[in-house]
């Protein structure tokens, strides 16, 4: 810089240059210009958009390069193999609260628009969940933080870097005294490597990990059982009997949930060797919905149940003496109840009959003892090494998250620098830990975060984080397999990743994510060839941990308190309250994602808020009508939220989802500074470190009627007459039988409806030569996870309508997952039924359209011609499935604020419109829309096959819903192809057409549910 100081140019390019201002000198000094530096930080205008596109083009061509090193100019020569307008797919990976999955991202001219699972990743197998599906919308969220803030005022990365270099250099000289790093749980090997380096370089620093929805049970349970923390892998494809103890092994929070679901579903094919699932749980889970037998018990009683099973089983297997004695049967009154005893004895008997072919799965939120008992049972039953495998735990934390946070708060006044890597502890910390106050006592606080959120507002520095689709990184799967995360686009708002920030703390002058990832791999990723192969495959082959055979230690006799034995009757004031991560907004991190907010919850079908789920008995006792407000009090603190009756909820157990009631989330989930009220109620405010996952002593009180809720089903509550009507026709809608029944009467599903032979007056007008698209949905495999709904939304540009329109019944989902309860509310069974357009051959919608806007294609699709549609809505009236959706307003413009066709100069709006799939028309106001079987995918594949002069292979076209389904419940294909899977499935005797008696000839057929009940419990 010194050489520039005196320099006066003879010819100057700008006044700044002539005057040689400090800004200009700095500008010249920085040798490699990033356009992000001179553009205002939040203005991806046209030029910048082109630059970003150019960057992504370049990156697409040379997938191994980091964006910073790329030429940020439009390409003058097209890289080989890159055709503008043809989407490309890249492998990457994501880590959510320490649970990671490998992904494939579809990128359109440099802009990622769709996320799917990576079929090569063993814990995805091509599937992904709603969080992953919606993450692309999260990346384009205009509410994301777009600039560094210091003391709440906009600053710049340059300023932060200058500060950080100096500040951390000082800390390094002091061996990190007073430095505390608070991170989320992460599976990243690079972050772990950096952490190790950091603690080595700065021995006095401390690294704390806090994840609000993670529990210590699994780690502590493993320590209790084996003396060391091990991770558990389940091989459910080998399990004939599965027993869950308040565990939802198919829920996103569960490690390897997607592959668990796939493996479990493999054994739920009624034509094959079917497994049997017993679910013992407090409230309905995806797992419980599929169970052959389900026992609702409060979460706090699970320990006694596990002990009971141990007592039943240990005495009957040849247990080695060093495994210790069996647990005595807990003296719990509820275990003496005939129905419970019968259930558990049958479970124990079935487990014993399937030694080596069974598995007991403990719930993540269950205490260590339950985990230890499950490990013990699995070892005693000979399942270890057959259906259960153990590997090393890569999570380095030693103490419980809550305890670590408590300690941090206690020492806050002596903390010099607190670096918070992600997370939102000011919002998520238990209410008895005054984290927000402690933050004020810390001298320097830095928060790296996607949003300028509750925690950022209290920190000295806020640094925008790069989204996972924008940054380099790596993750480890549950079995240890490493995946590399590669950026799909240059950071929209110049964010940093956590590893880059930690590297900066360590004194790396120019932290570079890619370099860090490659360096941390200790040579594995050093070679260019290997690295490119890893990027291509998405996994580092062979990096998974070897299986261990840990030795079971004797388990000390368990102590039970009175509640754990279910002694006193639980009533109002002593309810059990279970806190769960929300299946849509997680711990609140996805709260500002419209797709997730609008997604109906799997069980309640409620969107746009959380509710306290309560058993029917409690509702009756309180006189609560479904959906009316209740005040939920716990430990003197209360929140008011809707009370929703949850059939199948264990008596005395309440359930509430965390993640709502955000005050600094954004324009969707609540931004108090802009007058946008928080969505939902903040359950963290009543959560304490004592009752962290399961709290005792909750009180409910009626609090009035409240607003109409945004239900996607049973919008107005169903009266008795309606309930009876539903129960009466349910056997025809969701056809169900038992395995024995199916074997004896394979055509039981067809016989559920008494229907005369269906004749038609007309010769079918279309002969369906060539392709004849059809779909088969296996109701035996649908777990109701709703990933298909969000996948459909992402693929087909389905608008978000908002809470109020949804409460009026105007949601736009092309695919919905219907949820039906069967039987008595207290012990109701649940059934899910995904319902896309059935693409009837004899379509009622087509005949009634006066303008021919919905017409039959030669391949049998009911095509919508949006240009022709004038919106009479007659087609919807005549659709027996009511799968058509109408644009009552211009939802994209009214709610999202933008359509791809709207001229705008507002950069935030332009960012929003980047998420649209260019292959699918964005519908305007006043037209009808519906599922098209992803006709754009069909056409693309047809064109490709035609160009390559070949036939379309079976399975080559996958609809968006099918692609993401973890259990492969949805199969799409050509019914004219005698070898296609869909054709074979539709020919199975249990395949039936929903409302087929209307002679509509739907192209979607359902495979009837087949349960495998234990004859002893029948």
């Amino acid at each position, binding site marked *: 810089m010194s050489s520039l100081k005196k320099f006066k140019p003879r010819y100057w390019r700008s006044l700044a240059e002539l005057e040689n201002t400090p800004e200009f000198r700095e500008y010249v000094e920085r040798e490699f210009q990033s356009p992000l530096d001179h553009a205002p930080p939040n203005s991806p205008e046209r030029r910048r958009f082109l630059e970003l596109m150019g960057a992504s083009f370049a990156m697409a061509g040379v997938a191994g390069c980091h964006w910073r090193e790329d030429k940020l100019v439009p390409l003058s020569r097209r890289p080989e193999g890159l055709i503008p307008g043809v989407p490309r797919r890249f492998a990457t990976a994501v880590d959510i609260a320490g649970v990671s999955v490998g992904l494939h991202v579809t990128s359109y001219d440099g802009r990622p628009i769709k996320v799917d699972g990576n079929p090569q990743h063993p814990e995805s197998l091509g599937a992904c969940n709603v969080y992953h599906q919606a993450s692309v919308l999260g990346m384009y969220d205009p509410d994301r933080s777009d600039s560094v803030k210091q003391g709440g005022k906009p600053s710049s990365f340059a300023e932060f870097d200058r500060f950080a270099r100096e500040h951390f250099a000082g800390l390094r000289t002091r061996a990190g005294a007073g430095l505390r790093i608070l991170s989320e749980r992460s599976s990243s090997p690079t972050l772990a490597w950096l952490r190790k380096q950091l603690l080595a370089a700065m021995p006095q620093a401390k690294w704390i990990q806090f994840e609000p929805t993670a529990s210590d049970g699994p780690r502590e349970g493993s320590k209790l059982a084996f003396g060391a923390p091990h991770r558990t892998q389940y091989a459910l494809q080998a399990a004939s009997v599965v027993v869950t103890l308040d565990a939802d092994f198919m829920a996103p929070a569960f490690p390897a949930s997607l592959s668990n679901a796939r493996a479990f579903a493999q054994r739920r094919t009624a034509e094959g060797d079917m497994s049997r699932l017993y679910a013992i749980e407090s409230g309905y889970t995806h797992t419980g919905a599929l169970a052959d037998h389900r026992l609702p018990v409060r979460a706090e009683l699970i320990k006694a149940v596990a002990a009971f099973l141990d007592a039943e089983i240990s005495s009957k297997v040849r247990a080695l003496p060093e495994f210790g004695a069996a647990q005595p049967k807990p003296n719990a009154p509820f275990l003496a109840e005939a129905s419970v005893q019968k259930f558990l004895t049958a479970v124990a008997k079935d487990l014993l009959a399937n030694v080596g072919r069974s598995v007991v799965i403990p719930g993540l939120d269950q205490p260590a003892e339950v985990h230890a008992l499950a490990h013990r049972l699995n070892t005693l039953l000979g399942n270890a090494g057959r259906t259960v495998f153990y590997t090393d735990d890569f999570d380095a934390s030693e103490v419980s998250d809550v305890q670590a946070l408590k300690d941090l708060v206690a020492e806050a006044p002596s903390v010099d620098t607190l670096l918070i890597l992600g997370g939102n502890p000011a919002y998520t910390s238990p209410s008895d830990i005054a984290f927000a106050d402690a933050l004020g006592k810390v001298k320097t606080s830095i928060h790296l975060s996607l949003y300028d959120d509750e925690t950022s507002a209290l920190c000295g520095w806020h640094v925008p984080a790069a989204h996972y689709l924008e940054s380099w990184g790596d993750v480890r799967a549950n079995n240890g397999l490493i995946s590399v995360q590669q950026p799909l686009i240059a950071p929209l708002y110049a964010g940093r990743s956590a590893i880059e920030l930690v590297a900066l703390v360590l004194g790396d002058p120019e932290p570079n994510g890619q370099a860090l990832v490659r360096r941390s791999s200790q040579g594995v990723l050093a070679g260019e060839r290997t690295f490119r192969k890893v990027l291509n495959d998405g996994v580092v082959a062979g990096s998974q941990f070897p299986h261990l055979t840990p030795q079971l230690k004797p388990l000390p006799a368990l102590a039970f308190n009175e509640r754990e034995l279910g002694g006193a009757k639980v009533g109002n004031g002593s309810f059990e309250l279970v806190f769960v991560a929300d299946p849509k907004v997680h711990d609140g991190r996805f709260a500002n994602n419209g797709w997730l907010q609008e997604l109906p919850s799997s069980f309640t079908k409620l969107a746009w808020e959380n509710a306290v789920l309560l058993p029917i008995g409690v509702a009756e006792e309180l006189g609560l009508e479904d959906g009316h407000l209740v005040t939920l009090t716990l430990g003197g603190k209360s929140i008011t939220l809707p009370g929703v009756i949850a059939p199948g909820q264990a008596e005395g157990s309440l359930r509430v989802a965390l993640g709502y009631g955000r005050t600094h989330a954004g324009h969707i989930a609540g931004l108090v500074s802009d007058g946008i009220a928080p969505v939902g109620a903040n359950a963290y405010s009543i959560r304490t470190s004592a009752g962290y996952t399961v709290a005792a002593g909750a009180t409910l009180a009626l609090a009035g009627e409240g607003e109409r809720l945004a239900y996607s089903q049973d919008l107005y509550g169903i009266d008795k007459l309606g309930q009876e*009507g539903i129960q009466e026709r349910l056997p025809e809608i969701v056809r169900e039988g038992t395995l024995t029944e199916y074997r004896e009467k394979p055509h039981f599903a067809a016989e559920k409806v008494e229907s005369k032979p269906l004749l038609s007056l007309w010769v079918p007008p279309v002969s369906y030569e060539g392709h004849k698209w059809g779909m088969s949905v296996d109701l035996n495999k649908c777990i109701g996870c709703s990933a298909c709904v969000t996948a459909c939304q992402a693929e087909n540009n389905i608008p978000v309508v908002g809470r109020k329109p949804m409460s009026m*019944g105007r949601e736009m989902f092309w695919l919905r997952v219907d949820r039906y309860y069967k039987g008595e509310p207290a012990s109701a069974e649940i059934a899910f039924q995904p319902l896309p357009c059935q693409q009837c051959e004899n379509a009622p919608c087509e005949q009634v359209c006066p303008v021919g806007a919905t017409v039959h294609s030669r391949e049998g699709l009911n095509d919508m011609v949006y240009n022709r549609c*004038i*919106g009479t809505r007659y087609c*919807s*009236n005549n659709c027996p499935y009511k799968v058509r959706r109408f644009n009552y307003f211009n939802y994209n413009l009214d709610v999202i604020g933008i359509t791809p066709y709207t001229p705008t100069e507002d950069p935030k709006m332009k960012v929003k419109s980047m998420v649209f799939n260019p292959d699918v028309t964005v519908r305007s106001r006043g037209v009808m829309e519906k599922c098209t079987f992803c006709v754009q995918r069909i056409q693309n594949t047809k064109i490709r096959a035609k160009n390559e002069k070949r036939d379309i292979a079976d399975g080559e076209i996958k609809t968006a819903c099918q692609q993401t389904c973890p259990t492969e419940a949805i199969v799409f294909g050509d019914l004219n192809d005698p070898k296609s899977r869909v054709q074979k499935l539709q020919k199975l005797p249990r395949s039936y057409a929903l409302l087929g008696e209307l002679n509509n000839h739907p192209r979607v057929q359902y495979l009837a549910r087949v349960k495998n009940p234990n004859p002893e419990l029948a």
Partner: protein
Amino acid sequence: MAAVSDVNQFVATQDGGNPFTGPPQGDNPFAKITDNVVRVMAAPRPPRAWYIAFGISLSLLTMFFGSIGWVAWTGIGAWGNMMPVSWAFPIVNFVFWIGIGHAGTLISAILFLLRQNWRTSINRFAEAMTIFAVVCAAIFPGVHIGRPWLPYYMFPIPNQMGMWPQFRSPLEWDVFAVSTYATTSILFWYMGMIPDFATFRDRSKSVAKRISYGILAMGWRGSSRQWHRYERAYLILSALATPLVLSVHSVVSFDFATAQLPGWHATIFPPYFVAGAIFGGFAMVVVLAVPARQFFGLKRIITIDHLELMNKIMIATGLLVGYAYGMEFFIAWYGGNRTEGFTFVNRAFGPYAWAYWTMITCNVLSPQLFWFRKLRRNPWVTLAIGMVINVGMWFERFVIICTSLARDFLPSSWGYYIPTPVDFMTLGGSFGLFFTLFLLFCRYLPMVAMSEVKAFHPSVLAHAHGGGSHGDHH
């Protein structure tokens, strides 16, 4: 004002007799009839009641166009329509108004062919009512669509887009049924008025009126050749209009009957809808006739006997409608289709039971009061029951359309429709349009078919004098 009160005095003394069946009562020359009718047009100012009514109607009309404009501007989500009830108030209103539009042609054409001569004093007004009701009805299908700037896609207009309507759709049949009906009704109405326009022309004092009525009268001179042709044409038109009375509402009912929705899919719909339309149409005629005869001094022409005859028709059609309601239930049970059975039980006892029982009370129970001679000969009771029946007929369409849609085959898609304020504004506003047109008609057009009334006047009939009276048109 003076003229009107004078007429009222005159009428008051003459009220109560039967001008058609009984012997002529008192002095009633044809000139008096003409005077009565023409006086309304000739009066410098209509009665104050007209102004009040017109003011209210005009405000409602403003609200109508305001609400439609709002809907067109923002999107039809301004109404409460939702999934699954995607047809609601607008289509209910459409069917309601189309139904109202039936009595006019029925009275003009069918009763003409059946030689029901008492029709003469009410036919003009009923025809006017028909046309205004059809105007109200025709607006709804146009504005209820999602893109209200594109209803012309439904017309078979050759165009460069290569688009053509889809003729299998009952909505397309509606387009033709309603437009044919509107055209025929207007022609019929207008043609019937030609001799009366001539009378107005001849009786007008101002030049402007003389010119306008002169143009409307199309050079009518009352020659016997003109009368001959006029009567022929009238007969032909009434013969043409007669099937339309039955066809229009049958076609409208096909919108529902050909759909496969339980509660819509019923073969009983065409006759059921026609009976309902006549029922509602007559109710609307009495609702209009009672105040009109009161305020415009036409009690001598539209007598209590006329009202009584109409009330009798209402009992008959009311019973037909009641029978249809019962038959729907019977078939739903007898047909053994569970979904359909549920639909009807749900109609009567489900969340929309209030609407169903309102309908039953208004349409089936209230006309039973007309069994009492005293009640059916009381114009105010007639008015009240007429209004109640109109409410009931509106609810009938609401029940059919909304309750069937709200709960159909799959319980997962069940819903409950709640109208928004804009829905009520549009509904109320359509009455504004109707009454504005009707009040203008009362003021400026011949409200009673003078020539026809004269033709069937008792004095004429008593002397078995046929068409001879036609020569005297003033």
